[in-house]
């Protein structure tokens, strides 16, 4: 067994333990919020998944720059693996945000009250487009190049999109500010622990995903060698 896979096993175990601990903290340890009640518990996982989404797309940006500079395949693998995980977590953030909005603002889609939800949805759409772009380019090297460029351009638009959505909403009355109430100490502790465990989970998934991609590359190579009838060792 390679040394790399031992790390993966270790991190997988750690992620499981941390997520279970996070669930305990969220449901049993953290106190009930005064105005919103139990619904507020969505907050811990909701914000953590949004954070992982942002972070994952940032990693895709860095991997894109790395790929354009070096042209090495591993940067491309890192880029799309991270984007995949990012899309999953952003989708979770959008769904949990929408569920939270229903009891709070009595609307599934409170885009006037909550600009951040719109931003996360736009992010999700951008990175879905990223994967569409990947499927429609056949040649691997060109695909990696295009994806790297799109990953860079896409991330550059994020702060501007955020500003524009934020200002758009400023003209409308804010019903109430979520952060305004402030978090008590146990709440803050739970929140920080959730952030940390989601980040560990992201790292674990990223390692698994890149390993899988590398294995798939190996299999492809073997299959090609088999087809060409050249069975020699390399």
């Amino acid at each position, binding site marked *: 067994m390679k040394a790399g896979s031992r790390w993966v096993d270790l991190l997988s175990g750690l992620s499981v333990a941390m997520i279970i601990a996070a669930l305990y903290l969220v449901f049993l340890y953290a106190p009930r919020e005064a105005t919103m009640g139990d619904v507020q518990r969505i907050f811990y996982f909701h914000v953590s998944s949004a954070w992982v989404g942002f972070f994952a797309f940032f990693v895709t940006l860095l991997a894109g720059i790395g790929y*354009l500079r070096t042209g090495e395949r591993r940067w491309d693998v890192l880029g799309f693996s991270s984007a995949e995980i990012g899309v999953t977590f952003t989708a979770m953030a959008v769904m949990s945000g929408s569920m939270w909005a229903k009891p709070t603002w009595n609307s599934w889609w409170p885009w006037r009250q909550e600009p951040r939800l719109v931003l996360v949805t*736009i992010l999700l*759409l*951008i990175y879905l*487009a990223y994967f*569409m*772009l990947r499927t*429609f*380019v*056949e040649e691997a*090297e*060109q695909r990696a*190049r*295009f994806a*790297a*460029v*799109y990953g*860079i*351009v*896409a991330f*550059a*638009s994020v702060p*501007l*999109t955020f*500003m*524009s*959505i934020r*200002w*758009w909403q400023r003209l409308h009355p804010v019903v109430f500010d979520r952060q305004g109430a402030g978090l008590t100490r146990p709440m803050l502790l739970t929140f920080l622990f959730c952030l940390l465990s989601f980040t560990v989970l992201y790292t674990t998934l990223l390692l698994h995903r890149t390993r899988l991609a590398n294995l798939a590359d190996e299999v492809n190579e073997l299959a090609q060698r088999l087809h060409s009838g050249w069975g020699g060792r390399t």
Partner: protein
Amino acid sequence: MHFLNKVLAIVWKDVVAELRTKELFSSMFVFALLMIVIFSFSFDLRVERVAEVAPGVLWVTFAFAGTLELNRSLATEVEGARLDGLLLAPMERSTIYFGKMLGNLVFILAIEALMLPIFSAVFDLNLLQPGLLLTVVLGTIGFAAVGTLLSTMAVNTRAREVLLPVLLFPIILPVVLSAVKITAGMLDGQAWIDMAPWLRLLIGFDIIFATVCYMTFDYVVQG
């Protein structure tokens, strides 16, 4: 040749080609006209004050017509292997980016210049104000900056034209939002100072994306 001369040479090439065929211009014009007519019909039934929906309609029309232009402009380059010819020309690839971008900008602006009076008449609003024209120019620069890069990518994929709007629209969202806001503010007769943040955002977007797209264009056309 000087950098600017090379850029202008590419723009001139596109303009001459278009003047010969008039393909792009006529289809964009008819398309934009159709959009305005359809919008004016569909809103006529329910909307009391047209000025409330007009900014949105205006920019959606521009974005759709602009997408049509971008697709066509790059598709013709790829079809006749003209892009290869351009790449062989003795100049930096980034020069090609600015040349194509400026060409796209000229075409889209020309269509918009034709559309504004028609739009003003159909929706019975005065859109020919200097501030609004400035907004149109700034918004179109941002649109063409990102659009040129992404359409070069899109025409090199299997999906071709289908892919461009999917790639382009989520990224130019800040341009559309701020342009709509400024247009609406102007139609409501707001003071310039109230729209300053939006104008800054628009200018910031233009500068950031012209730079980012200029730096990455090289990687899209190589290989």
